[in-house]
């Protein structure tokens, strides 16, 4: 009867001694946090749809260069390859952070989260550089339908990573202050899900925008 527990939903920190229920605090809390993780999972599904729509737009407009520069003219794969491996690695390191957390190692958790965030930051740095390069070469968001779709799709992913960085920083600060509690644990679980998800999206950006763009 998991539902019953939720409705009672005692929290450990409230410190009431008089719970007659046969469920321990930890278990109750675990359930509440699980519900939030499920809610976040549903949010990720909505994000799948969001990116799906952007991909659909990109694919439909992929040949509409309107006499402007082609994608394959300007895209430089070296930077893209680097950022792809950086993001892949950060997905892995965020997983290690999770393992450290499950071991109860606060220091390890924070260290690996910081490593993940740094990798994410370098990904963003490379992306910004790429955009600057493209604009310099004469392709901006208003150049043609192709470039509008390109910048919007890639930029939306980049924006997601940036939001993830701010959020991860906030979580690191909270872990430093509060340690590994059911609440911070859930937050780390959620951000690592988010991070893996961004990695998946990038794989498709990499494949459909870049690899197929230069093919």
């Amino acid at each position, binding site marked *: *009867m*998991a*539902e*019953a527990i*939720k*409705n*009672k*939903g*005692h*929290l450990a*920190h*409230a410190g*009431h001694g*008089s*719970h*007659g*229920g046969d469920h321990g605090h930890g278990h109750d809390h675990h359930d509440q946090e699980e*519900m*939030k993780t*499920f*809610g976040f999972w*549903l*949010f990720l*599904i*909505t*994000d799948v*749809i*969001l990116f799906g*729509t*952007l991909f*659909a*737009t990109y694919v*439909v*407009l992929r040949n*509409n*260069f*309107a006499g402007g520069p082609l994608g394959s003219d300007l895209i430089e794969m070296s930077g893209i390859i680097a950022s792809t491996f950086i993001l892949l690695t950060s997905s892995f390191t965020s997983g290690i952070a999770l393992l450290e957390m499950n071991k109860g190692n606060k220091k390890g958790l924070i260290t690996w989260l910081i490593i993940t965030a740094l990798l994410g930051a370098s990904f963003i740095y490379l992306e910004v550089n790429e955009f600057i390069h493209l604009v310099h070469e004469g392709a901006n*968001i*208003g*150049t*043609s*339908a*192709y470039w*509008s*779709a390109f*910048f*919007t799709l890639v930029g939306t992913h980049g924006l997601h990573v940036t939001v993830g960085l*701010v*959020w991860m920083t*906030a*979580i690191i*600060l*909270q872990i430093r202050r*509060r340690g590994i509690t059911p*609440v911070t644990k859930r937050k780390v679980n959620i951000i690592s899900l988010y991070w893996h998800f961004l990695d998946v999206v990038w794989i498709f950006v990499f494949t459909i925008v870049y690899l197929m763009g230069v093919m």
Partner: protein
Amino acid sequence: MWDKIKDFSSEFFVTGDPLILGAQVSIAITMVAIVFILTYFKKWRWLWTEWLTSVDHKKIGIMYIIASILMLFRGGVDALLMRMQLAVPQVEFLNAEHYNAIFTTHGVIMILFMAMPLMFGLFNIVVPLQIGARDVAFPFLNSLSFWMFFFGAMLFNVSFVIGGSPDAGWLAYPPLSGLSGSPGVGQDFYIWGIQISGIGSLATGINFIVTILKMRAPGMKLMKMPMFTWSVLSSCTTIIFAFPILTVTLFLLFIDRYLGAHFFTLDGGGNPMMYINLIWMWGHPEVYIVILPAFGIFSEIVSAFSKKKLFGYKSMVFALMSISFFSFFTWAHHFFTMGSGANVNAFFAVTTMLIAIPTGVKVFNWLFTMYRGKLSFPTPMMWTIAFIPCFVIGGMTGVLLSVAPADFQFHNSYFLIAHFHQVLIGGVVFGYFAGLYYWWPKMFGFKLHEGLGKWAFWFWNIGFYVCFMPQYALGLMGMTRRFNEYNFDMGWQPLNVVSTVGGFLMGIAFLFQVWQIAHSIKFYKKEKTGDTWDGRTLEWSIPSPAPMYNFARIPVVTEQDDWWEKKQRRLRGEADPPEVAQAEQAPLEPIHMPRNSGVPFVMSSFWFIAGFGFVWDWKWMIVLGLGGVIVSMLVRSFTYNTDYYIPVEEVERTEAAARGAH
């Protein structure tokens, strides 16, 4: 300096139209009056602590409903203005521009700012009570959803007096809605108003799915859930898959307008038809989003007032869930005439016809539930009965429209207008009215006056048919939508006059409802039992209005229509199953509740500021708004003290007071 201010304000405020001037003056007077009343009666603190910061699903539900009724009024006034313009050929009561603005705002407001919040209001009030929960899964997010909706709606509505209303149709097709077609700020108000409230809708969808899947009372298996809860689940499923598409589509339109991109422009390789394709991927599921909960409401009411279990519970569940799935495969029937080729049109014509099947199944479910039932006909049941033929006719004309070759004739004619008003008014509005009448006593603890309700009912119904039946004929006579003028020699006037009369009959019906509410408040009669209609589901097992924690003890459910079965058992003198009895006699425990929070209100007002900044392209305002949003999020993230306990003594006191009122 003075000239600068004058220049600015002539651009900033909408000027020059007596109707709008009147509206501006009345808005200003209303606002002053509200501020005065709140200050005079010292109600500011009460407003803030009891309502604006509340995370209680029942209060949020009430706020949704109040907002939606205000929006119904505004959308209704728009409709009547249009009908007045169309009653007489070749007059200029509204000029073309004003007429465009009014049909645009009418559509947007009725769907997004009337139907949606009314629906969310009913979700909020009913779902946790029906499944035996103390709140929704994420009460804070719930409050945020409401305020995002509210400020989004306000941003949209403010365009009426500031900057100018959008006037490119309710779905704002480019290139008309692009920068070349609509250089003014109206479209930006449209984009940001909908975008901000859309985020709220998405969050509500997630919230209620989690609530329904994870917070049901012990023993309430999925197949024992009340049908309204099922319909909410199917509607929310559709929301979370459809709304991201709207978000992206409007976002792309915004980028086109703001950054000069070329998604939907005529130059630079843009393709306006892609917008039409995308917006209907949201737009079609959207109509199912609003109709599905109405189906749930009718199911509850039919069963309650026939004193019978719903006929074909499983087939109803199946129908609801399959509609929410198949609603994603019919969108192209909105643009058969775009020229996507015979295969595309054939495919979408067939899917459209298919989706009529589960809808038809439901009509039989309701009819067979009534068959040999002990029927009674209070207002909620009357709306249900009126809905069935109305919706059947609306559905049939929908099937006519789904025939792709025939649609080339019907497309954008008044035939179409009559069709979708028939399913939206006959289905959605009737459904939500039925729900409002049905659950009103649960919300407020008193019933609405039945006699006045019947007047309103008849005016609505007769008005509806008088207004829209002629429009089918007008459509076949060749009258197309969105024209503000037509010639005498078209021969359309007689039917248009009839239609206008019908529109005003519905206006009178609305006045009856306002009167009904005022009358019922004035002659307040406390509803003592908590079980106004001898109901069947859990919400009727607790006092009206529900205490803030809903259930002092979480019930254990053993049956479908559990409360009804329990009452029957007791009438027969049978004992409850042991687990039910045990749950009822268990000692009270402190109840864990979420704390109120001002963050949703503040964060949403920052969204409003950011949106307003984007509309006028005032960079400082954008930065201020978005900065405020980020800070609000971080504040929330760092807040750990988000819950508290209601002590047993207080629960006992509340329960005793509720019982004392018996």
